[in-house]
Each structure stands twice: as structure tokens, then as C-alpha cells.
């Protein structure tokens, strides 16, 4: 009997080991992915796509500034690379074409009327009476009727960074939606938790510009959320300037200063969220903005502004194997990783310039060598050359010399035929 228990025990151990091996082998494909995302330490955000949910929860003419807030954020986020398909813009949208609008069809966020935020090609996903608490929560959680079109859905995955911006009238742990209903901080916190459970985000940046805004993010409890608000509890957030032509306030202080900071940011910017938060000046804002980063796992100095505001992600460019040309496959990381260049490993690549330079009229075609690539390095990699090189390998790469040979042969054949038929010779009987 002892031997059978021993046997059973050995069997048990073996099965555990085998199962363990199975688990390990299942994570085999995950290892290179993990390695890609953590190439420069766990400081990387690990996101591959960016989304934005911009909500203006007020309507009516006197809340023009909330419309301008949301549209200003929309413009900034679009400028930095998030496409319309990845932006959910919820606006009452009753400012631009309001009969009281002196500048019909335009929404300005400054008194000088420099920049029309409304423009020709904005895409408002939820307008007018569709901006409700229910729709907002449905957008966040993704629980909507199957008839809702794609443009109104937040189609995020577990590698999406989402920028959620809310503006309007608010109070202690609530936000007023369209003078009709309220959303509470608990609702948003629960929605975010649902999103976390369903793996609908990688990181969320939550920005809110209302009175007593900091209370809105006080109830979050899901990981990877960074939040900021414009004022503390029992404090109001103020508007920035009145426009005497439009007749109402056109922008709020908090959003104005954030947008001003963002004007200095472009897609390749290395500015961090800490830089953004450092520009918050309670004196200028007349309120105390707050930042909540306890749920956020990365240090703010290493979190780029473009991780949330822009459509910038990690990418690795690998040249296809040009025949007889490449010694090693090349790994390049374009843009935004420049500060890490001392530690970056750019594999040595040699692309045979003659392959690309024969008859090719691109400028500097022969410069596509590793040194040039390293020089061009970070943000300036010439993708046209890479794409052209890739294209040439895919579509039959014929030496131009044989092409001209063929063309000449063919032309000579045609000319021979022509001369044979036209030069008068002994007439054949059938021609009479």
C-alpha cells in the first residue's frame, strides 16, 4: 500500500510539473511582447493607441465657455495626433449657430478671435440632448445597444491610453449634465472600475474643470488613473476672460492655462506630466488645482504629455531583408525616445547603396547607411526611403538595365516589322 501512495504522490508531482510547464510555455509568446514594451525599463507606458473622451456637460449661450473649453481640448488633441475615430466629443453644440452668436458658425476661446475652434471639419459624436449621464456611462463602459454606430463607441482595448476631460458646472462630488441631471464621482469611479475589469484601458488621464473639481476624482479606486482638477472643495473655478463682442466669457482659467501650455507641445515633445502640473499657479487660477497620482504606477517625471494628449506610441521599425544587402535586421525607434539614446541599441545595418541608387532619383539615396540612420536617428527617420526600399523588394525588383534591353529589343522588333512591310519588295500575288 505504501508503494501505491508513493506512486500516486510521484504522479501528482509529475502532473504538477507538467502543468507548470504548460503554463510556462503558454507565456512564451508573451515574453517578446513584454520585452518590447519594457525595453527601456518599466517606465514606459506600454500603450499602443490613444483615445479621448471630451465632455461638455452644459448647454445654453451663457455656458459658451464650456463649449470653448471642450473644443479647445478637441483641437489640441487632434493636432497632436489622435484621429477623429478615436475621439468621442460630447457637446450640446448650441453655441456656434446660436442666434446670439455674432460670429456665426465660429467658436472662439480668446478675445482676439484668433482661432476659430469650430471650423469646417469637427466631428461631434454626441450633440444636443444626446449628452446625458446615461450615454456618458455607456460610452465609458461600452455597454450599448448593437445599433449604436462605431463612431459613437469607445473601442478601446487593454493597451489604450484614454484622456477623459469633463467641463461644466459642478459641485461636491457631482457634475451637472445639461441642467437636467447629475453624475456623481462614485458613478465615474465605478465606470472606471468596470473598464479596468473589462481591460478597456491601459492608463486613464482624467481632467475636470468645474467648481470643486477635485472632489470628482476623489472616489476613484482603479489602478493606472492619473487625475487633475481645477479647484478644491468649497472653491470655485473661474472663467478667464469676457469677450465684449460675443458678450459672454469665452474660456475658463484652468483650461486656458492648460491649453496655453499645450500650444508649446508638438508630437515629438518630451515634456512630462510633471511639467504640466508645475505650471499650475493658484494665483493665476484663483483656485487650487489638484493632482491625484496615487493610483498611477509610473512617476510623473517620466510620463510624457503626449502619452495622453497625443496619438504617439512606441514603434519599432524593422527593414525587410533586402537581398544580399542587410547584414543584420535593424531595430529603430522613431521619435520621443531620443533622451534614451545613450542606452539605445541600434543594430549595425548596412544597406547596399547601389541597389537603391541605380536610376533612382531620390535625393541622398546613397545615404541610406547605418551612420546616416543613426544621425537621422530619432525623430527624423526618412520613412519615404524605407518605404521605397521595402516596396522595391516586394514588387518584382528588376534591374533597370534588363528593362531597357527588353524595351530596345521590342522596339527593334516593331521597327523591323514596319520596315519589312513598307519597303517595296517583290509583290506577293495576293496583293493584287
Amino acid at each position: 500500500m505504501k508503494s501505491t501512495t508513493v506512486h500516486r504522490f510521484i504522479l501528482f508531482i509529475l502532473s504538477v510539473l507538467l502543468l507548470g510547464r504548460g503554463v510556462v510555455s503558454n507565456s512564451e509568446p508573451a515574453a517578446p511582447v513584454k520585452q518590447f514594451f519594457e525595453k527601456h525599463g518599466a517606465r514606459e507606458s506600454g500603450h499602443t493607441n490613444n483615445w479621448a473622451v471630451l465632455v461638455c456637460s452644459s448647454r445654453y449661450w451663457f455656458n459658451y465657455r464650456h463649449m470653448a473649453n471642450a473644443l479647445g481640448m478637441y483641437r489640441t488633441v487632434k493636432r497632436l495626433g489622435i484621429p477623429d475615430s478615436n475621439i468621442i466629443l460630447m457637446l450640446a453644440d448650441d453655441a456656434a449657430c446660436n442666434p446670439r452668436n455674432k460670429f456665426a458658425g465660429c467658436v472662439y476661446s480668446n478675445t482676439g478671435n484668433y482661432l476659430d475652434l469650430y471650423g469646417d471639419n469637427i466631428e461631434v459624436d454626441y450633440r444636443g440632448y444626446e449628452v446625458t449621464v446615461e450615454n456618458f456611462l455607456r460610452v465609458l463602459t461600452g455597454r450599448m445597444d448593437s445599433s449604436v454606430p462605431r463612431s459613437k463607441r469607445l473601442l478601446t482595448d487593454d493597451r489604450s491610453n484614454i484622456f477623459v476631460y469633463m467641463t461644466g458646472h459642478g459641485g461636491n462630488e457631482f457634475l451637472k449634465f445639461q441642467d437636467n441631471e447629475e453624475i456623481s464621482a462614485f458613478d465615474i469611479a465605478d465606470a472606471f472600475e468596470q473598464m479596468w475589469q473589462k481591460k478597456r484601458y491601459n492608463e486613464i488621464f482624467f481632467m475636470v474643470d468645474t467648481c470643486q473639481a477635485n472632489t470628482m476624482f476623489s472616489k476613484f479606486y482603479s489602478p493606472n488613473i492619473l487625475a487633475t482638477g481645477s479647484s478644491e472643495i468649497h472653491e470655485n473655478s473661474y472663467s478667464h476672460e469676457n469677450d465684449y463682442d460675443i458678450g459672454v466669457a469665452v474660456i475658463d482659467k484652468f483650461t486656458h492655462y492648460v491649453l496655453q501650455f499645450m500650444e508649446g507641445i508638438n508630437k515629438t515633445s518630451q515634456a512630462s506630466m510633471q511639467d504640466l502640473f508645475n505650471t499650475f499657479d493658484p494665483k493665476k487660477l484663483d483656485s487650487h488645482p489638484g493632482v491625484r497620482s496615487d493610483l498611477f504606477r509610473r512617476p510623473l517625471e517620466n510620463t510624457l504629455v503626449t502619452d495622453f494628449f497625443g496619438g504617439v506610441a512606441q514603434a519599432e521599425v524593422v527593414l525587410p531583408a533586402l537581398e544580399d544587402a542587410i547584414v543584420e535586421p535593424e531595430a529603430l525607434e522613431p521619435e520621443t525616445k531620443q533622451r534614451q539614446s545613450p542606452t539605445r541599441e541600434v543594430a549595425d545595418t548596412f544597406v547596399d547603396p547601389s541597389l537603391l541608387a541605380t536610376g533612382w532619383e531620390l535625393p541622398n539615396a546613397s545615404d541610406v547607411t547605418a551612420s546616416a540612420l543613426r544621425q537621422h536617428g530619432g525623430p527624423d527617420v526618412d520613412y519615404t526611403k524605407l518605404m521605397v526600399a521595402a516596396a522595391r523588394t516586394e514588387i518584382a525588383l528588376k534591374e533597370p538595365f534588363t528593362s531597357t534591353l527588353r524595351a530596345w529589343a521590342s522596339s527593334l522588333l516593331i521597327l523591323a516589322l514596319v520596315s519589312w512591310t513598307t519597303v517595296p519588295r517583290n509583290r506577293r500575288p495576293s496583293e493584287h
Partner: protein
Amino acid sequence: MDFIVTFPALVAGRLVLALSPLTHYLRDDHLLSSPLTSYSRLQEGIYLFKHGIDPYSGSTFRHSPLLLSLFSTVIPLNEVTAAFLWTASDALAAWSLVRIWRARQNVSSSSRDSLIAGLYLLNPYTFLPSLGQSTSSFENALCLLSLMLACQKQASASLLALAFLIQLSLPSILLLLPLLLLLISEPTSHLASPFFFKTDIRRITPLAGQFAAYILLLSGAATLVCGNLNWVEKTWGASLTLPDLTPNPGLWWYFFTEMFDHFRPFFLIVFSVHLLIYVLPLCIKFQHDILYACYLLLGILSIFKAYPTLSDPGLFLSMLSLFPETFPYLHHPIVTALLHLHAALLLPLFHYLWLNQGTGNANFFYASTLVFGMANGAALLDSIWAGLRIAIGEVKEEHEVLQE
């Protein structure tokens, strides 16, 4: 006026216009060039070819590989050479037309030569596509050259020209049978006195064999340029499968934009076979005057071709000048002329309204192509009527000519 004077003058005038910047505005006009004949696409194809990329791997380039080989070797294509080339092809076409006229009238020169040359060179339907540097001008020139050489009994040259024409444009294969018959008969006018075909019809067999040889050799030259047979599907196949639905003055494109995929093969076959059914009846009915059958088949092509441009009906209308004996018997020349005027004004207008201004839609342009088709159809039907009516001649009082 003397032909010796007017012809060079017309050609010189055409050359001056061809060298002007006017060509840039006309180059990509949908009425003047089709996806098979556009100059921009030709340039694209030559560029790709010169850089070692197969121009037939995509679907922009649908010209014949022979053009590819000629323009990348013998005739470099730039602004100046293009102007000279297109002017030369128009001059060749007009000169061939005059020669056909002379052969038909059996004279070495006549007072009408300059009029006929002018009717081709100044016809806006042929003149504008040539300025727009559409290769349909080459097709016209080759067609007229082939007919002229057939009238002069130079069989090999004529068949080679036709083979070349078919390389450029597959629907022109309709002209094969009439051309072969023309080679063994006379081009002189016998419309008024019809007779059964006099010569032994089996004489066309060696000619047909010669033609087959030319087509094979030219196809071989084309395959030699490309290195593979992709060109067949992209050039000839385009006329049969209609892959590109760019608007043109023809009748196919709109029909196939609204066609369900299920019916596409059926209607493609119907439209292609439709072209073929006209050949035999016209050749049989006009066996006494085969040149007239060629003329009518060109009319058929201009209406029912897959990718026509304005130069196809232009050729048909210019060739009308070869048959003045039919003029008294045309039923409704005024109506035809007015329909053509109507269509010629509406086509560019509705095209502009639809695609530039955006206040019209495709139906406007489609309607104008229908009017254009009606104009061409009216011209064709009237020509057929007149060609047959001549044979009846003067009609006695109280008698009428009826069509059963």
C-alpha cells in the same frame, strides 16, 4: 484653296496650339481621355518601367506595352516631343483621309482635299483629344492609315497597321473582316449600284494568316517588354471586364456602376458580343462597297465601345466627308447636327456641375452621355439609310420608299 498650302498651314496651326500650355488644362479631362488613353497614366507607366517596377502590377497603366517600349527607348516623351508627336499623328490621319478620298474618287488630287483635311484637323471632337494628348489620336491615325493602305492595295502594311491598332485598342478588331474584304476589292464608290461580291472570298485566307502572324509578333514584342503576360489582362482585359469606372462619354460606365455583382459577367458578355454582331450583317449588306461598311463599323464602335473618348465619334463624323453621294439621301441631317450640338454643350457643362462645382450629380452627366449616344446613333442610322437608299435612286411620282 490649294491642298499644298492649306494642309501645312493647318498642321502648323495645330503644332502651335500643341506647344501652348493649353494641353495642361485638357490633359485629364474625362471626355477627352479615358483610363486606356490618358497621357498622365502613360507618363506614370513609363516612369515605373524606367525604375524597374512592373507598370502592370497596379491598375493605373492600361496602355499597350508597345507604347511603353517605344516611348522609353526610341521616342523620349517630354513636353516638346509630345506636341510634335501628336501633331504628326493628326497630320498623318488627315493625310490618310485625303488619300482615301482620292482613292475612292480615283483621282490623284481634287478640289475637296483641303476641305477633307480641314474637316479632320478642325473637328473639335478630334482636335481637343489631340491637344489633351490622349493616345486615342494615335488610334485614329492608325485606323485611317490602315484603311488608306488597304485602298492602295498595300496589304502587309495595312494589316500591320491594323495589328498595331488592335494592340492599342482591342475593340478595333471589328475592323478586321471589312479590312480583309477591302483588300481584295475596290474602294471606289459603288453604293448606287450594288452587286454581289465579285472576287473569290477565299483570297482573304492568306491575308488573314499574315494578319495573325503580325498580331502574334506584336504580342510577342509586348511580352518581351513586360517579361510576363500581365499586360493582356490589364490592357485588352480592361475592354472586356471594365475594371475602371471612370466617367467617359460612353454608355458602359454608368450602367456598370449600378450593376449588382451577380449580373456583371452576364452583362459584360452581352455588351461585348453586341459589338460583334454588327460585323457580318454590315459586311454582307454593303459587300459592294466595303469602305462604307468600315465607316459604319467605326460608327458602331464610337457608340458602343467600352472606353470611348470624343475622338471616336470624331473620326466617324470626319469620315462622313468621304461619302458625299449620301448627302442628298440623309433623312434628318439637321436633327443629327442639333443633337450633336446639344450633347457637345451639355457634356462638359454637366461634367463640370457634377465633379467641380458639386451642384449636380452623376445622373446629369449620364443624361448628357445618353444624348450624345443618341446623336451618334442618329448619325449612324441616317448613314445606313442613305447608303442603302442611294441604290434605289430616283423615285417615280406617287411612289414612296418604305422600310419594311
